[in-house]
């Protein structure tokens, strides 16, 4: 892949609440290369959104970055002032929000909303900005854009609104596009359209995408690489194929198990709930829900074990001393597919 444009190292974020500090992000590291799509997958509350908001410098008031760095173009974003961040947001790093129904200002014409980042970052005067907004509006596939540019958000459907939100994010041709569950709130049919649109646009404007979702199914067609997050930590990451066909972490197994496929008929939920991050467990946070948990899981946090050049997972099961266990049926099936894939690749 191309050059590395983003490097997140050992990020740690706490939230100060009346009950104490919530350790929302613990020791998270990942990187992003130019032109690629990285998917971050996990349950709600696993820290995906917090991670991306820290990239934008949009953390809530009570959040505090306790450690780590986010290197963008050789500079640490975390050290930048609010003013400097304003120069980056929307221009170099843009974001698409979850719910298109509420992300648009109800009282401002959509043309103006799209043009705003241009006026802000490129010093384009209003007229020209609106002209460019019209272009991008066409690009995201809004019919009759000339007329509709003067309409208000409530006059658009959900899918159209998400297209507009995408238009806003892309209007400055950002290097990184963060898509925070962009399709969750949409109908399934619209979801596909939006995903296609994003892929197409990525190709056109050569942007890198961090794609956040709790839905592994979406990831398959979108991402180059996948990071699986659990309880504020990344537990496994690798290429799409590696995650889908050779998953190592029991949590990833759980995720895959709960995903409908053509062949499987019964879906299996992961039992239990994520741990309370106010007081994270000492060992593997997933231990409590892990049917394969071992004694060490409750005592020591597992390190990342290398599976391949690109594939790492954080589970004691990969420790050489660990007993051999049999993953769930579905996973075994997938791993077999993976073996075949590798065989044919060689």
């Amino acid at each position: 892949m191309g050059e590395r444009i983003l490097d997140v190292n050992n990020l740690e974020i706490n939230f100060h609440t009346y009950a104490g500090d919530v350790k929302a992000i613990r020791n998270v590291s990942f990187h992003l290369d130019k032109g690629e799509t990285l998917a971050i997958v996990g349950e709600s509350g696993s820290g995906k959104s917090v991670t991306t908001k820290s990239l934008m410098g949009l953390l809530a008031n009570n959040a505090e970055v306790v450690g780590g760095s986010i290197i963008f173009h050789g500079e640490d974003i975390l050290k930048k002032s609010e003013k400097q961040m304003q120069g980056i947001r929307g221009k170099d790093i843009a974001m698409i929000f979850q719910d298109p129904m509420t992300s648009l200002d109800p009282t401002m014409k959509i043309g103006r909303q799209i043009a705003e980042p241009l006026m802000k970052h490129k010093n384009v005067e209003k007229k020209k900005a609106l002209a460019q907004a019209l272009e991008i509006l066409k690009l995201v596939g809004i019919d009759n854009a000339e007329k509709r540019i003067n309409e208000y958000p409530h006059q658009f459907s959900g899918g159209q609104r998400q297209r507009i939100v995408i238009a806003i994010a892309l209007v400055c041709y950002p290097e990184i596009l963060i898509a925070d569950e962009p399709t969750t709130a949409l109908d399934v049919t619209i979801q596909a359209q939006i995903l296609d649109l994003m892929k197409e646009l990525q190709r056109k404007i050569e942007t890198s995408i961090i794609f956040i979702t709790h839905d592994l199914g979406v990831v398959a067609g979108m991402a180059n690489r996948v990071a699986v997050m659990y309880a504020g930590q990344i537990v496994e990451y690798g290429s799409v194929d590696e995650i889908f066909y050779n998953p190592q972490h029991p949590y990833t197994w759980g995720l895959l198990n709960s995903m409908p496929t053509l062949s499987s008929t019964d879906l299996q939920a992961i039992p239990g709930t994520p741990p309370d991050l106010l007081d994270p467990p000492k060992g593997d946070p997933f231990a409590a829900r892990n049917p394969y948990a071992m004694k060490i899981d409750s005592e020591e946090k597992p390190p990342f074990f290398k599976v391949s050049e690109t594939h790492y997972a954080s589970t004691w099961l990969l420790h050489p001393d660990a007993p051999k266990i049999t993953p769930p049926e579905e996973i075994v099936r997938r791993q077999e597919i993976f073996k075949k894939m590798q065989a044919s690749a060689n």
Partner: protein
Amino acid sequence: MAEEKYNLQPDSFEPLAQDQDQELDSEKIAAPSLTFSQDAWRRLKKNKGALISLFIVLIMAIVSFGSTPFINHSELVKSNPEYANLPAKIPGVNINGLNGKMKVSGVWTDVYKENGIKDNVHFMLGTDYLGHSLAQRIIYGTKISLTVAIVATLFDLLIGVTYGIVSGWKGGRTDNVMQRIIEIISSIPNLIIVVLMLIIFKPGMTSIILALAISEWTTMARMIRAETLSLKTEEYVLAARTLGESTTKIAWKHLVPNVSSIIIIQTMYTIPTAIFFEAFLSFIGIGISAPQTSLGVLLNDGQKNFQFLPYQMWYPAIVLVILMIAFNLLGDGLRDAFDPRTRR
């Protein structure tokens, strides 16, 4: 990733014992489950301002209503003009303003001595123009103000809630007509309704209460209607309907409890409005009539002599303001408690 030093024991990779596993797996819910009102109460308790306000309101209510046996009619009509317009004198306190002294044309003068009043006569908050104890008047006035406000609010509730539920529940034509009626009524400044009513009826407490109730219920009716409209489509209400429960029963069993938070909050805001309005009516001279008194009457009497006897306005004003603040904070607190979304 670098292999670090881990404290690996031989038995580290033994599977976790089943019971331990079980325990870890169980969902821990820290708080016991609460009913809606318990939950609201819990939230309210966290709001210190609201809690203090609740306390103040209760104290005021207890003191003022508890005074009934002591401050009765014959006590009220008793006048002692020889004690008129004395400033506060609290035994044992020697702070100018509270020791029977008052600034008379710029000089602190012992008004008690000047008027030849015996040393053992004390008035905690001074006296009014007829020599009534101002403290007594304020307590009684608070009672009347609260009574007016609370009774008016109760009427307000009765009309407003019934009207709102009927309008929202019936819907269609009935609703339309009822809403138009509200629209018309609320286009008449409520002051005018009150004033017209008071011109026609004999001035006094009953008239004020009626006038207030008649002019203030529309807000309540509107809110209740809106809530009823949305409740009407709730599944449990639909279920009750399909099961053939009578409308009154549904209204009583399902609607009223569900609009109760709105009612309580609205009540907290209506009471101070009513107190305010009563004060205003006293100012323009159509308020409570003697020997009864209210905070409004006291304030109005006090403001006329502010240049000379500032305490006659300050004391009732302070009581009124505290009462108003308490009700407002309590209202805010209740709103936040019942509707956590609004809490920020």
